[in-house]
């Protein structure tokens, strides 16, 4: 992707320069006639527009022309997609004039030598383990957006057949503020801004009537309460779980949405298994701790079935206890990641086929998928929340035989 954009930009700048240069050299000739600076400027403008059009039409041939140069590595859609879907140390925004523009984020590692912190910009956008950063008596390299500490005496990373570094190891704990962590913080800032403002609105109004942003979020809050918490947990116990359900719903939703914003590319937080794992684990912990006698009885000694059946059901129910949060984790991760992968794959088609003719198809399809993804953001947040509520409801259900 970088490779094509780079060259096109180069060509545009070259052509524009050449054209305006031509006009300037032409100017003395014009001087002999009537000197008209306005006309000259217009000519320059026209030239720029014309050359841009020219590039647009013939960029296909330019692209193939540069390919013949052969110095750029081959476009690998799989690597590009994985690079976008996975976490990274810097927040890469876009490429400008061949230079990647990114927000540097802190890399924090904990090793035997203690805590080390440095800016991700010190890797100079390298993620192939070429740039070595020396800090705190250790040498760090970035191999595919994973920080490695070089072993003593090693001067560069060497790889085995599977491209795993052989003379470097991962730090004990990698607590870096990666782009996902960064976007997570942006998202909670936005959430706090929205909901604290809304809460203030309620406090200000004397008759508890929502106004402004409060009237916008109230239907959502009521939706979580009336469509998720009350039917799943029950009229009497739902109140205890409301803060968790509301928080998880909006937290997942906003991060799903942020994952779709192109300029924040790669902020695929809710499509990261670590994120979904954490939330699913919290749901699991809450479910387990709020389980009543009835819940545990249904797991270990199913009432109302013969004894052999009870023994047969026990392992299944115990596995089910863990499968529920695991399914939560995988569902959110897979849905969001799949959406990103599809969009990126459609975009990659342009570069795989090396023709701009496929672009309308790619754009149309990825627009279509993006629209679906917008719906999926809400649906996945809803599903995660409603299933969490369902598990809480199962854990707190009273026996009714």
């Amino acid at each position, binding site marked *: 992707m970088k490779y094509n954009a780079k060259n096109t930009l180069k060509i545009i700048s070259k052509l524009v320069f050449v054209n305006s240069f031509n006009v300037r050299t032409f100017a003395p000739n014009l001087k002999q006639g009537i000197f008209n600076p306005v006309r000259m400027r217009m000519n320059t403008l026209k030239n720029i527009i014309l050359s841009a059009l020219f590039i647009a039409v013939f960029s296909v041939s330019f692209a193939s022309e540069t390919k013949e140069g052969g110095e750029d590595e081959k476009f690998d859609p799989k690597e590009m997609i994985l690079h976008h879907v996975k976490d990274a140390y810097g927040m890469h925004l876009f490429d400008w004039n061949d230079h990647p523009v990114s927000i540097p984020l802190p890399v924090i590692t904990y090793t035997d030598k203690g805590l080390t912190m440095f800016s991700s910009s010190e890797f100079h956008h390298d993620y192939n383990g070429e740039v070595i950063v020396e800090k705190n008596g250790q040498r760090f390299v970035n191999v595919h957006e994973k920080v490695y500490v070089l072993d003593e005496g090693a001067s560069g990373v060497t790889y085995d057949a599977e491209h795993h570094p052989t003379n470097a190891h991962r730090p004990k704990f990698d607590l870096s503020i990666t782009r996902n962590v960064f976007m997570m913080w942006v998202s909670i800032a936005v*959430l706090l801004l929205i909901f604290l403002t809304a809460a203030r609105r309620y406090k200000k109004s004397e008759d508890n009537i929502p106004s402004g942003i409060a009237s916008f979020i109230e239907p959502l809050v009521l939706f979580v309460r009336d469509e998720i918490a009350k039917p799943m947990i029950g009229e009497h116990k739902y109140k205890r779980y409301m803060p968790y359900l509301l928080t998880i719903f909006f937290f997942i939703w906003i991060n799903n949405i942020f994952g779709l914003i192109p300029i924040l590319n790669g902020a695929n937080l809710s499509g990261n298994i670590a994120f979904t794992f954490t939330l699913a684990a919290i749901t699991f912990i809450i479910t387990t701790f709020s389980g009543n006698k009835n819940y545990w009885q249904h797991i270990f000694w199913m009432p109302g079935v013969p004894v052999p059946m009870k023994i047969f059901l026990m392992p299944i129910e115990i596995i089910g206890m863990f499968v529920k949060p695991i399914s939560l984790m995988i569902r959110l991760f897979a849905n969001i990641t799949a959406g990103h992968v599809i969009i990126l794959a459609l975009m990659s088609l342009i570069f795989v086929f090396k023709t701009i003719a496929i672009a309308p198809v790619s754009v149309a399809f990825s627009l279509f998928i993006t629209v679906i993804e917008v719906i999926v953001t809400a649906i996945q947040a809803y599903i995660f929340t409603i299933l969490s509520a369902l598990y809480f409801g199962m854990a707190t259900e009273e026996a009714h035989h």
Partner: protein
Amino acid sequence: MDLITPEFGLVFWTLITFLILLFILRKFAWKPILGAVSDREEGIKDALASAEKARQEMENLTADNERILQEARAEREAMLKDARDMKNKMIADAKDEAQEQANKIIEQAQAAIESEKKAAMAELKSHVAGLSIDIAEKVVRKELSNKDSQEKLVEEMLGEATLN
């Protein structure tokens, strides 16, 4: 397989961030928002209930008024009836008394008349007797010469006298 291996760093930060977010939102957002919503719902419920109560009271009041009015009307009827009865009774009593009095007076008058009549009769009798004796004396004097005629006369006179 990086893709499906949770990174410790992100798990760590997600956990911390989420718990902080949960804490802040719970305290400063969900509590006031849900509180306000449920307060409002309670308010609406209360307002509806009190409106219903007011309507019930109003109905009760109207019924009471109707009842009191009915009672007052009945009482008036009763009072009027009593008064009428009293009047009739009084008139009847007065009439009876008057009748009695009148009868008494008439009786007394009759008794007086009777006694007067008796007295008058007695007087008349004695007077007649005297007169008769006078007449008889005269007749006797005149006709005593004739014994037969004397006897005839006495008999005649006596017969006449019993007639009365």
